Each structure stands twice: as C-alpha cells, then as structure tokens.
C-alpha cells in the first residue's frame, strides 16, 4: 500500500503510552489522571490465563462507561495465534477504542488479517470503517525482518518494540544501555519514518531509577523514537520532561516554521533559516518540537 511521502497520516502526540493491567479496576478507573498521552489497557501478558475473561469484560465496560479525557485509548489484545483474539475483538471493537496493539506482530499477513476482522466488526456494529488504528509490537526476530512490510499495511499508526522478548528471541543479553537492540531499533525507526509512522521505544523496567529512565528516553529521542512505553504512572513525568525541548530548540523551531509559512505565502520555492536551507522534513521536525513544547508546558 503506497503512502504519500512527507505526509504524516497520524501526528498525534504519543510521548508516553501507559500500560494498565485490564484486570485491575482501581488502576483502570484512575488511568487518565496521570497525563499519559496514550493508555494501553492490557489483555495480554499481564493477565493470567484464568482472568482473561474478567479483564476483557472489565476493559470493555470501562471504555464504554468512563471518560479518559485527552488520553488516547488503546487496548493490547492477545496475539494472532491465541484462542483469545476473537473474543477480544468482539468485545473491544464495538467500544470504538482509538487503537489496538497487536503483540508479537510478525508478518504483513498478521496485520491484514486483523485489519479485515476489525473492518467486519466495524460494519457489523455500524461504526465508521478505518477509525481504529493498529499498533503492532515487534517482539520477534521474524517481526524485525518483516517490519518494512508491516508498517506499510493498513491502519498502522505506531510501532512498538518489545525489548525483553526480542532480546531473548535473538539470543542476546539485556544491557542497561540497550546496545543489543541498537540495530533492531534503527531498522524499525527507519521503516516507520519511511511511512510516517511513529516508532515507540520499549519499557524501562526499573521504576525506582528515574535518572536511568530520563537518560534512556533522551537516547531514544535522539535516535528517532517518538514515544516510550511506560509501566508506572511515576514514569510519565520523567519521560515528558525528557521530551521537553530546550529553549534553544524551541526558538529555532519557531523560526523555521515562521520562515516556512512566510515562504508559502510569498510563493517562494526555497527558504533558509540561520543561513541553512530548510525543506519539508525539517519543517515537520520543527512542528513536532513545538508540539512537544506546548504539551510539556501543560
């Protein structure tokens, strides 16, 4: 599926995606108060097999009954080859979440299958077709190999990385600075960038190490990640702080956007800021910086 180059199909801010176990009513009820850009109600790994039904029903009812404010509402469903997927979709799609996270996404076919099933359910329930986004999580070597096709599939808005599973699958050892995932991350970031999809970094497991999280997020941002998955509300403020651009970056971004808009008005082809030519990707990056700055000041 060919995408228009340089056109963000979904530019929603996803600095933080907070995982919430789907079988925990108190956490679900308070999910929106911490200011995460996205919420992920989990039906997969954090839910014991004996509580899959409980979590599914709870999450379905919560999305129907509660207001999650400005946060994007997504659900991590169970994987393609599990006996839970169909029930998950039947329960969750009618609640019109903003997105569904597909764990262990490995092939384009996985996404197409999910896309078709969501489409059927949207039609069945009289919902607009195509509004629910798919957000695959790459957790296997096969998923990495196929990521360029995965990001090109329909409905994709963001791609996450499952660091722990990936490390195990390729036979590597987890390190504090995550160097074993460098190649994989780069491959996924480049694939996402090619299709203007957001790459979201893996979780930082030590919830007591806020400085470590801050530095890891800074590294992730510098490499091109657009967000980070978080597993505890206390991580949100740290990640948002890491995403907050410096005053210098903000000022420069303002100059770029202003110069670009003026050039459009005047019908100019090329424009320079601070003596350097700017083109559309630079403008888009500047707009992203301003968006992060605006969100960071709230």
């Amino acid at each position, binding site marked *: 599926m060919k995408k228009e180059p340089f056109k963000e199909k979904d530019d929603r801010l996803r600095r933080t995606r907070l995982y919430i176990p789907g079988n925990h009513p108190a956490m679900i*009820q*308070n999910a929106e*108060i*911490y200011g995460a850009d996205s919420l992920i109600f989990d039906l997969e790994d954090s839910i014991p097999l004996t509580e899959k039904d409980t979590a599914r029903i709870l999450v379905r009812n919560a999305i129907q009954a*509660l207001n999650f404010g400005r946060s994007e509402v997504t659900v991590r469903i169970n994987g393609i080859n599990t006996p839970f997927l169909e029930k998950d979709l039947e329960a969750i799609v009618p609640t019109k979440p903003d997105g569904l996270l597909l764990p262990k996404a490995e092939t384009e076919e996985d996404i197409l299958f999910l896309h078709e099933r969501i489409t059927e359910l949207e039609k069945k329930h009289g919902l607009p077709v195509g509004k629910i986004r798919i957000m695959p999580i790459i957790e296997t070597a096969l998923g990495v190999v196929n990521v360029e096709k995965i990001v090109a599939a329909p409905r994709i808005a963001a791609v996450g990385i499952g660091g722990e599973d990936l490390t195990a699958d390729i036979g590597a050892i987890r390190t504090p600075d995550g160097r074993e995932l460098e190649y994989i991350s780069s491959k996924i970031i480049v694939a996402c960038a090619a299709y203007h999809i957001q790459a979201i970094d893996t979780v930082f497991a030590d919830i007591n190490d806020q400085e470590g999280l801050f530095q890891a997020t800074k590294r992730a941002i510098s490499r091109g990640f657009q967000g980070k998955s978080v597993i*505890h*509300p*206390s991580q949100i*403020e740290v990640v948002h702080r890491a995403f907050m651009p410096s005053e210098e970056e903000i000022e420069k971004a303002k100059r770029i956007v202003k110069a670009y808009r003026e050039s459009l008005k005047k019908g100019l082809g090329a424009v320079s800021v601070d003596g350097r030519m700017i083109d559309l990707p630079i403008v888009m990056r500047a707009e992203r910086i301003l968006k992060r700055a605006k969100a960071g*000041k*709230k």
Partner: protein
Amino acid sequence: MKFTANKIGRKIPEELFEKKLIPFQGKGKGPYKVRKYAPKIRMRRPGEQKILGSIREAIKAGELTDGGTISFHHHFRNGDFLLNMVCHEIAAMGLKDIRLVPSSIQGVHKEILPYLEKGIITEINCGTSSVIADAISHGKMERLLTIRSHGGRARSIENGDVEIDIAFIAAPTVDPYGNINGVRGKNACGSLGYAFPDAHFANYVVAVTNDLVPFPNNPISISQDHVDAVVKTDKPIGDPKGIVSTTLRITRDPKNLKIAHDCVEVIKASGLLKEGFSYQSGAGGTALATTNFLRDYMKSKNIKGSFGMGGATEALVRMLEDGLFEAILDVQTFDTYAVQSLLNNPRHIEIGASQYANPQTSGCAVNLLDTIILGGTEVDLNFNVNTSTESDGRIQWGMGGHQDTAEGAKLTIIAIPLLRGRIPIVVDNVVSVNTPGENVDVVVTERGIAVNPESAFYDTLLKAKHLNIKTIEELKRIAEDLAGGPPNQPKTTDRIVAIIEYRDGSVLDVIYQVAD
C-alpha cells in the same frame, strides 16, 4: 431540647448535660475568658520525696474522687499502656463517673471499653479513634465525647473549661524530683508537647516511668516545679514499636503521589514558596511525599525557609539538615530519626501544645505558618472538612491540629482522594464539621483542584493555567459520576453522643448516635 443554628448552619442545642453551649460564630468571634484558670498551689518542703510505690498510691495522693478528671498525653501513640493501667486501677479502687481527658485515644486503649459500659468512665474529652470511638457512636458511654483540636484542648485546660484533678504523664525518663524528658530511655517518644498544658494546669501531676534517671535529668521538658509524684514501675508503660516508627512509609500509590505533586504545584503557584517560607504537614504517606517533593524543589531553587512544624518526621528533619529551614518546631515526633534530631540538633525545638496552637494566648505558632497540608474524610460544597466521622456516621478519628493550622496558615490545602473505595469524598454536606470552610483555601484531589472563592489566593491560583482547576461542584459531580451517585445519608437516632468544639470553645457541630 432547643436548638440554634451556628454560623455554618449546624443545629446546636442550647444546653447539653447541664452545660450551656455557645454556637460557632466564625473565627476570631468566639468566647473567651478574662483570666486563665489557676490550679491548686502545692508545697514541697526540703527533704520531702516524690517517689511513690504504685499508681494506686498516686491516685490516692492526688485525692481522685467519683466524678473526677484525669488526663494523659498520647505521645506513646498506639504503644501506650499507661492509660489502660490507670483506668484498670481506678476501676479496681471502685471509683466511678470519671472524666477522661487524654490528648488522643488510640486502638490500644480498647481495654477501657467495659469501663464506659459500666459507668466508671462517663465522659471523654479528646480526639478518639478505633474501638472506643465506635462504642461512643453506638451510645455506650453515659455522657458526652467532646472532640477538641490540639489547640482547643490546650485552651480548655488553660482557661478552666476542663479542670484536671490528676495528670498522668508517661515519662520516657524522669529523675526522682520530677524532671521529665521524652528523648531518652527505652520509651523515647521525642517531644512531650501535648503534656505541657496538663503539667502546668493540673491540680496534681504524676510522672510514671520505666526509666528513672539520676537528678538532674537533662534536657528538661517538663520540670520538677510542676510534678508532684514519680512512680517507677517495672511493668512496661509503653511498647517502643508502637511509640515511634523506625521509618514512616511514603506513599507509593500513584494516585496519592499525584495529589502530593499537585499540592506542591499549588504552593508554588501561590507565591508563598520563597525565602522565609514556613510549612507544616502530617505523617501520612501523602503528606510525606509532599514534603519530599517540596524538599527537591526548594533545593533545586536554593530557597531557604524559616521553619517547618511537626509532626516531626525524617522527611522534615532532612529539610532542616539540608539547610532548607532555620528550625523545626516540634510538638509531636513521629519517627526515631526525628527523635534523635530533637535530642542532638539545637535547631530542632520542642514546643508545647499552647505554644503550638492555643488561640487564646499571646501568640501561637500556627499563626506564623505559610502553608499547611491537611487530610480529611470528606469535604463539602462550602469547603467544610470532616475528619471525625465516616460517611456512615460513625466516629472514627479525632482532628489533631486540623482546625488550628487551617485557621492559622495563610494557605490551607486539603489533600484528599476524590473517592475512597466507591464512596465520593466531595459531598453536598459533610456528615460532621471539624474545620469550617472559611479556613480552607484549596482542595487538591487526583482529578482536579478546587479553590475556595473566598480564599485570598483565588485570583492568583486561577491564573495558574497549568493547574487542573475545577469548581468544587465539578469535583462533586465527577465523584458522583464515577460512584453512581452521592453516598447514602447516615442513619442516626436523636441522641447526641459527641460535640465538636471549635478551637475557641464554641460548638461547630454535634454527632448523633448511629442507628443499629
């Protein structure tokens, strides 16, 4: 029974148990007496000793009779055995109709329940929690529970509203001539501040200890000129584990951490957080988290405050040690770290309950507070705060220094979750009022911050766009939407079991017996 509505619309009987009640008329407008109460003059001649062999001897020496009044401090908290020991002795001696005036009753004091039921203890003046509070709610005590704040209690003792026949002071250390401190000994509890008014105004003062030390005890918190008898007993008067915590737990609940974080944001936005800042918070998990957030911020901005007041905790002491405060004023010490600080750091100062919060003195410390962070069980649309009763009407807690600090501080913040379990905490009318809304500036919940339109900080805080400001009515609606409606009204009988005094002695509210 004739009733009059007080300033906050609560119906107060004109008289109860032969005592005329004065309805609350607003802060600074309450009754006050022209002169302080004076206790009996006692004389001790050269060569006379103060050591007595038992608590029973002390009760006899203090000439306690039926209808008498005895007092205790609660610095031993849930590790206090002395109140139980004295009550058992009084019961064994056949005394009855005793008025109990402790600064607080804790869970450990459930042993005295039979004495309420048998008419041996017929009246209690203090904050009460746990089993005894529940029993009073169910009408098991003959007369009234009078709930007072720490400042109100000091006032009632000093102005003679309460005349104490014998004050029993659990003494971590005392010398044979009656000099007491709380910072040494196996039962070290830190400050003895709540016992100061009792020691100064009771007609007879008994120190009871497991650690008799040679004269002169040093430092001296309560001095020999106020102490009539010293009882050394080998039977433990306290359990060190229940007296102080080794470490108080800072909340890890993300919801409470958010509330704590937002409290600091409110203080920052108020403009008060600058050179000379003064602050008090409690020892609850959320309060401790607020103190730690505040410490980080003050350090990062190099702000040096004036004083921190406690409830002294390790969190507050670390601010003193970091140079963020000039001093700590300590009326009550919560953990071992703070006890050591009180012992060793001259800038950690022990103060008495009157100096802390008595409104009818030449000036109490709460008057100098910039900010206080407080909790509560409920808050209502008029910003009235309940700390004593649960939503089902049962008495569960006292109020500590709630209404004292709320009136004294420039900025009073109520930090409270919007829901407890499935029960909305912001309601139309609280079950009972401990702190009137006129003393409350801000209510901070996890889902929004309500500023009292009457607050001097209203305009300033509403300009702070990063704060999630909502009206108190909006908070109530959000709570009710989540819970499916307002809480049920408690079912009560028409018998009044407790009154809640304002710190000046007027009556804020009454509490009715719950219907079984």
